[in-house]
């Protein structure tokens, strides 16, 4: 599934990096610890987090993730929006909790690496 299809099915809003919405999502990861994500998130994963600052974009770009989901109705910070737009990293927002967002993604067939 692409980021765009997932966003559409789950009612998630793209808040930055619209250009990258056609990327294929190949797995999923959830964490608010950046080093945990750095150490374990696979390339192409969609990352669910409650972090909203621009270092989230930097981590997603370095790992070549497919998208980031900002859960819990939190708002991505302005400098992060600018960075995600400039570097084309799809950033989605949802009022769902991280738990709920991961559950819905799993229902759609997105899996973590086991």
């Amino acid at each position, binding site marked *: 599934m692409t980021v765009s299809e997932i966003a559409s099915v789950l009612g998630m809003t793209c808040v930055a990096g619209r250009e990258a919405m056609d990327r294929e999502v190949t797995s999923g990861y959830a964490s608010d610890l950046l080093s945990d994500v750095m150490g374990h998130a696979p390339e192409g994963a969609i990352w669910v987090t409650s972090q909203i600052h621009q270092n*989230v974009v930097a981590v997603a770009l370095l790992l070549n993730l497919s998208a980031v989901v900002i859960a819990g109705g939190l708002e991505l910070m302005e400098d992060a929006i600018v960075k995600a737009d400039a570097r084309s990293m799809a950033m989605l927002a949802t009022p769902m909790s991280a738990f709920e967002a991961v559950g819905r993604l799993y229902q759609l067939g997105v899996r973590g690496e086991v």
Partner: protein
Amino acid sequence: MTCTDEPVLEMEFAVARHDFAAAGEAASRVKQVLRQLGIASHLARRAAVAAYEAEMNLVIHSHGGKIVLRVDSERITLAARDSGPGIPDTELAMREGYSTASDEVREMGFGAGMGLPNIRRCSDCFEIDSTVGRGTTVTAVVNIARPGS
């Protein structure tokens, strides 16, 4: 065969203390350079992760420093050097989960005590050398596998 120890590339990236806005830029440049050199993506990724963690350590803990990237035909070498404050107990610092980061930094999702272990995990060769009052050098090497090896 000609000598293969000659460096094909050496670059330096300055990293400023507490500059969270620019954090990740050095690692991003490292990844970009390795890609341009045609380094295999799984090796470039390991080097980029190591560079990012080293860069964040400089931003969070050091008085400022630099990351030196050196690439020759056999290996990618990253050296993160700073001018202090130094680590009193490097063995403790290497322990997963141990961190001296402030609450503020932890709230941003840093300071999980996974940075140095992540660098070691990404490296074929890892060294940490630190003197309190003088500074720390972390060296990480990622071997470039030769065809047939």
